[in-house]
């Protein structure tokens, strides 16, 4: 198994060496006993409704997704500061930072001068909290094309720091479908602007709320709904204004009940700042150049698990800008590491339902030739081996082009 992992990594690092990256830095407190379940649901919805869709929309522009997701005990101030500090990027890259978890602010800080909160990052020591302002400044300084910071946490004061049952998310039990219009709106938002944008779920001195522990919080729900209704004229300002209006309206106009059927009465006003200038959209689709000799594998230490390998394999096979024969050859080499009856199982956009299955060889060939598959994502733990160590099952989230 090790043999082909190294093979694939070397091949990919060479192939993607010239690619532009979209970095997803996500820190989510999924273990907290009060909000952990809600964070899990919100993260899942964010991944399937936002991240996968953005990745699929920008793939044709030569963007490769680098997903750094920290959940459970991996969410920590150390990991956050290290990831943010160590990140290096080029001027064409895009950085998206997402935090879901507890937050707060010092009573000794002015809300006007410092409107952003501090993140607890799944620990209890106020001295180790990381200010969102610091993250924003650090990421801005990296010189990426666009830097987006989204924080879903409280902004309430803490002197210790230096109607329906719930929002009903539009559950989609099919694959993620992406129309050209939607794709263009996303491309315009991510590639049509340069600069930095930041949004947080509640303004200074306010708390952020969620209805029931196993559903989405109010802000994430509004964020995803606004994202899904992006139009051709959308800008970061109009998108974020819509998120703010939706969050406030959802809370104020709805009759919300908690798990015990008691009415919830709260207020919450998201706050954002945009510092972007419109820029020309890249018209030509970029074809990453394949160097003559593969370079040394660099910065791929965290890519040693099979999910990442298969994720990259599928995006490579799906890359129509590369020669079909080269892709076929690679697949023929790797095929031998899969069992003869290995299958691919397709997972629905929401939930963990299996909506379809296909023999892996058939699926790989479909990936190489189909024009409607925009993205195939292998989730964590999505590769299962049989008793002989051969690949038996691969789980996949697909984003499919669907034009009416």
């Amino acid at each position, binding site marked *: 198994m090790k043999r082909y992992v190294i093979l694939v990594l070397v091949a990919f690092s060479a192939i993607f060496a010239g690619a532009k990256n979209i970095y997803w830095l996500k820190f989510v407190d999924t273990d907290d006993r009060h909000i952990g379940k809600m964070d899990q649901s919100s993260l899942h919805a964010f991944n399937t409704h936002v991240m996968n869709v953005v990745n699929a929309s920008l793939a044709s522009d030569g963007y490769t997704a680098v997903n750094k997701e920290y959940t459970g005990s991996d969410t920590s101030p150390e990991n956050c500061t290290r990831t943010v500090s160590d990140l290096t990027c080029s001027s064409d890259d895009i950085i998206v930072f997402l935090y879901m978890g507890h937050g707060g602010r010092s009573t000794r800080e002015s809300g006007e001068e410092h409107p952003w909160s501090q993140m607890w990052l799944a620990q209890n020591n106020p001295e180790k909290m990381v200010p969102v302002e610091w993250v924003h400044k650090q990421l801005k300084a990296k010189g990426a094309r666009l830097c987006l910071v989204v924080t879903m946490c409280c902004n309430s004061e*803490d002197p210790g720091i230096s109607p329906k049952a719930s929002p009903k998310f539009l559950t989609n039990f099919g694959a993620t479908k992406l129309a050209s219009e939607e794709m263009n709106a996303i491309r315009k938002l991510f590639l049509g602007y340069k600069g930095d944008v930041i949004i947080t779920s509640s303004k200074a001195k306010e708390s952020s*709320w969620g209805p029931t522990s196993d559903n989405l*919080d109010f802000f994430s729900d509004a964020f995803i709904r606004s994202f899904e209704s992006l139009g051709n004229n959308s800008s970061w300002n109009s998108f974020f204004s819509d998120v703010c209006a939706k969050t406030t309206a959802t809370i104020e106009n709805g009759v919300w009940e908690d798990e015990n059927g008691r009415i919830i009465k*709260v207020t919450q006003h998201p706050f954002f700042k945009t510092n972007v200038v419109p820029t020309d959209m890249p018209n030509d689709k970029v074809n990453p150049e394949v160097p003559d000799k593969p370079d040394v594998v660099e910065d791929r230490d965290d890519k040693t698990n099979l999910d990442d390998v298969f994720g990259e394999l599928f995006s490579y096979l799906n890359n129509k800008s590369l020669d079909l024969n080269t892709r076929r050859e690679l697949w023929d080499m790797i095929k031998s590491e899969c069992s003869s009856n290995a299958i691919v199982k397709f997972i629905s956009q929401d939930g963990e339902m299996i909506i379809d299955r296909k023999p892996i060889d058939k699926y790989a060939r479909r990936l190489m030739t189909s024009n409607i598959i925009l993205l195939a994502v292998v989730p964590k733990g999505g590769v299962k081996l049989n008793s002989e160590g051969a690949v038996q099952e691969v789980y996949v989230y697909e984003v499919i082009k669907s034009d009416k």
Partner: protein
Amino acid sequence: MRKIKHYLAVVCLVCLFMPCLGVAKSNPKRVVKRVNVEATYKRDFAERTSDSIADIVFGAKRIVLVKDSVTYVVPRYQHALLMHILSDKGNYETDIPVFAHFSKYATIKFINGKKSVCLSVDCGTKKWLFEGADGKELCRYNLFSAEIFRYLHAAFPNDSLLSETVKNFYL
């Protein structure tokens, strides 16, 4: 005859004052009944929390407020006022998931013999929580009225966060 007339006059007089005497007799002392509001408060409180917490809180011999390093002993005549504030059913409705840690700003300790219960309030999330003597969380709720903050503000009038919380509570 004269004797009879005199006798009849006495009887008439007695009959005349009879109703007055009768009322006075059936209601010899005009006592104002005591309304036992405390029992109602305790019942409401126990319904939302538990009987064991209610027994300690409503039977507290000593109540102290603790904020930072300041300890303030609540005078006995103020116990009833605190019970009134604590019994507001609206403040035991929900514990809405919030994305902030509970930060104990001030604590009210109810001591009944060897048993004690602590009630802490958080100005940021506007919640309160009860803890046992061992520090174990018993229950927590969202606060929908500012009364407890008003009381604490009266006890610590120079505290700016309490003053701001009271001022902005319903905004």
